[in-house]
């Protein structure tokens, strides 16, 4: 009974990990997202390994296999849209660092719209491609790689939605600790952007 009381009392007074276990080099939110991104790079790495295995080791006569074709121009335009969104989220963060709340809101809304446009175009591309994930190993790996990335864009859009709603409700400030709610989704969004550049070059161009 006494030990239970002590445990409850301890829980009341203690929130989060003890100070000694926190890094003095980097705040835990930023460290968390960086470690998460490292694990995500490994996940994408596994998919790329499958892609190159199918393309190089299995060595089909043509890639993409006849009669399939990929809409490179549409994907290129989509790439430009996603790269632009990295610039807008950077603008949003630079704005809040200077205390410009309108710039933050504008940057976040623009990023969200660009991300949603990217996802819409990709879904539209899937509808009109003319092959499915069941059509050859090419179809499977194409939909796996681009779909995995699309899922990451969707998660990024959710994070941006929360950040945008908070921005319009007056959250966030110029101090570093006051805009971590935008900083962390921003880092994640840049990662999604970098991964798309690699996916686009690998799947559509090479």
């Amino acid at each position: 009974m006494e030990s239970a009381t002590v445990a409850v009392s301890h829980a009341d007074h203690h929130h989060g990990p003890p100070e000694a276990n926190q890094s003095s080099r980097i705040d835990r939110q930023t460290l968390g997202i960086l470690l998460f991104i490292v694990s995500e790079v490994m996940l994408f790495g596994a998919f790329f390994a499958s892609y190159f295995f199918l393309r190089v080791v299995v060595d089909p006569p043509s890639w993409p296999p006849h009669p399939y074709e990929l809409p490179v121009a549409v994907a290129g335009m989509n790439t430009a849209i996603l790269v632009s969104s990295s610039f807008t989220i950077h603008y949003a963060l630079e704005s809040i660092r200077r205390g410009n709340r309108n710039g933050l809101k504008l940057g976040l809304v623009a990023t969200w719209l660009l991300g949603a446009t990217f996802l819409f175009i990709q879904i539209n591309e899937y509808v009109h491609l003319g092959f499915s994930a069941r059509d050859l190993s090419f179809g499977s790996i194409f939909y796996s790689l681009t779909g995995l990335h699309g899922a990451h864009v969707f998660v990024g859009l959710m994070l941006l939605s929360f950040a945008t709603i908070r921005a319009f409700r007056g959250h966030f400030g110029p101090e570093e600790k006051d805009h971590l709610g935008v900083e962390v989704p921003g880092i994640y969004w840049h990662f999604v952007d970098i991964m798309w550049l690699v996916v686009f070059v690998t799947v559509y161009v090479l």
Partner: protein
Amino acid sequence: MKLNEAAVFKWVVIVGIAAAAVITVTLLTRPLIGSLLGLVLVIAGCIYGYRWIEQKWRELGSKDLHT
């Protein structure tokens, strides 16, 4: 300099330039040449990235968030 969004944004620009180089070479020559250039750039990027992380970690080590 801190390990934050602005630092990661620079990597978007670096990877963007590298991707543009690979696309240009592939369109001008053959996919194999573009792939080889891509491989060289990935290896160079890994070495540069490792040094970059090491330097950032050393810089962060000289600060203390709790003070």
